[in-house]
């Protein structure tokens, strides 16, 4: 077996499995259950899924922090299990949590990271200066990071990850906890990484709009597997028709309403959750009065009924079998 990938992908994961022991006598938790995907160089690849789906475990394995129980993965041409040192020279990791030293200045953080990666003193200082300028944090560069705002510190985290010009940058939930303005700036920066810098970015997120906006391709991760994979456009267009959403007055009638909606011509894939009934429809807006009418005949009060173009949320709903925000209360109704 060779430790060098010959496939030409920047990141390639094959049948990764990982279980965590949770305590004596308890069943191990399968964080990854045969996960696999491949990323073309110079693209942004999104791993999308709720907390606990296995996104961060995947990043930890690909960035050599953690080892898979089985399966193989290559990053920037090197096998993460067999040659982690080679991988570590070629990647940058921006983990979920702030990864700068709060008791050092921004510049000191960057210079230290650069020196560890093998840059000489002058190169390290020059590189730190350029990154501080590029991220617009040069004004604060010589203040201790603990005095920085969350958005500025997050930019510094990304700058630290870029200090040695890695081939692959891992961004683990880069915008969680940021205000909308800082988030928009981060999005613009991520766009530049793959565009101008020809870097490969592996992005994890639980924000659908973030994945839609940034990722050239994405995988929806569910229970440690890839539920579906493709470009955001492919995933959305794969969904037939539009989304019908009916809000009821009473939650108790949702199951019965779902059954009734399923009998309407042109309506498929009916789900209900709380007071909401969702379904797919080929018939566009024409189906709305029909649905309201049949529900009215059955004595079910409708608060609102809408039809919308499919979003990534709907892709997620379909492939993960549950809606994105809520994971508890969903039951599928066979239409």
């Amino acid at each position, binding site marked *: 077996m060779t430790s060098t990938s010959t496939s030409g992908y920047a990141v390639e994961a094959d049948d990764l499995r990982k279980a965590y022991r949770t305590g004596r006598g308890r069943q191990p938790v399968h964080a990854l259950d045969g996960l696999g995907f491949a990323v073309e160089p110079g693209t942004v690849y999104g791993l999308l899924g709720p907390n606990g789906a296995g996104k961060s475990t995947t990043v930890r394995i690909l960035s050599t922090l953690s080892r898979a129980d089985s399966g193989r993965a290559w990053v920037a041409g090197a096998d993460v299990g067999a040659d982690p040192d*080679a991988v570590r020279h070629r990647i940058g990791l921006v983990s979920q*949590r702030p990864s700068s030293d709060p008791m050092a200045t921004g510049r000191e953080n960057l210079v230290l990271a650069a020196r560890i990666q093998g840059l000489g003193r002058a190169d390290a200082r020059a590189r730190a200066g350029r990154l501080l300028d590029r991220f617009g944090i040069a004004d604060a560069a010589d203040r201790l990071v603990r005095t920085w705002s969350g958005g500025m510190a997050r930019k510094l985290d990304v700058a630290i990850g870029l200090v040695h010009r890695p081939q692959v940058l891992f961004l683990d939930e880069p915008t969680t906890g940021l205000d909308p303005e800082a988030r928009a700036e981060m999005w613009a920066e991520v766009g530049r990484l793959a565009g101008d810098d020809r870097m490969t970015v592996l992005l994890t997120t639980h924000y659908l709009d973030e994945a839609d906006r940034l990722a050239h391709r994405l995988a929806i991760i569910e229970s440690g597997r890839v539920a579906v994979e493709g470009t955001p456009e492919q995933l959305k267009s794969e969904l037939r028709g539009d989304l019908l959403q009916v809000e009821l007055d009473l939650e108790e009638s949702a199951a019965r309403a779902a059954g009734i909606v399923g009998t309407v011509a042109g309506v498929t894939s009916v789900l209900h959750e709380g007071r909401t009934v969702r379904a797919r429809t080929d018939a566009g807006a024409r189906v709305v009065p029909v649905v309201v009418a049949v529900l009215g005949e059955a004595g079910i009060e409708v608060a609102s009924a809408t039809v919308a173009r499919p979003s990534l949320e709907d892709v997620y709903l379909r492939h993960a079998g549950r809606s994105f925000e809520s994971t508890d209360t969903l039951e599928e109704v066979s239409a």
Partner: protein
Amino acid sequence: MRSPHEAARSASSAHAFAGTPISTLITHSTYLSMRSIRALVRQPVFLVITLVQPMVWLLLFGALFRSVVRIPGFAGGASFLEFLTPGVVAMTALFSAMWAGTVYIDDMQRGVMDRLLASPVRRGAMMNGTLVYQSLTSVVQTAIVLAVAVLAGARFHGGVVGVVVTLACACLLTVVCAALSNAIALMARQQEALIGISQFLSLPMTFLSSAIMDPSLAPGWIRDCARFNPLDWAVVASREALLGSPDWSAVWPRLAALVALAAVMAAAATRTFGSYQRSI
């Protein structure tokens, strides 16, 4: 699209890693020590806080129990302050070093630990960085404790050699305890657990030694325990070396044992990074 060979070439040429593994280990250890030293210099108040407890032991405890030297059979000399000072030096090293792991836990709670582990930095350098920093702290603390003892009237006739041996003992004990603290931090991964375990170890180590009392007045089982206690090795070696005419046969074996244990502990603690990585 780039071929993987091109990709690999550009990776190795981008910032090729200069130097041998050993020189890399040394430079990385230096960078990481500097990081901690810089943080301490910015907040010297932490160093002052670590000196409060030794001053209480030295000045209050020393004054309170000054008469113990008059107990028949006390073989530690005529001045309790002089007897107690090497004990307080070792206790200070122990109590400070047992906190060493809190830096790792802070780094784990932020993403600093993960970032370093996913970078080419050597695990040994991550360990050395904290051990060097803790040792330097210990040198400063020891110097201050000795100076205060002299100001309070203690006289050490061992001269420069005695002071150097005392500093060496404090540093080696610091390495042993800081490595242990780091290992506990990497395995327990929680501040509360680290503090609990450290406190559980620190006081028994202190009392099962000759740090504050002549063991010839203590029960035999305490003397037996003290023989295996690295804190006692440091106390006995430095106390002897500070005397006017030391019995070096009591110093060297203990110093050698401390060197060996420090090396073993540092190496073993470095291996616990693997345990941490398996847990995440």
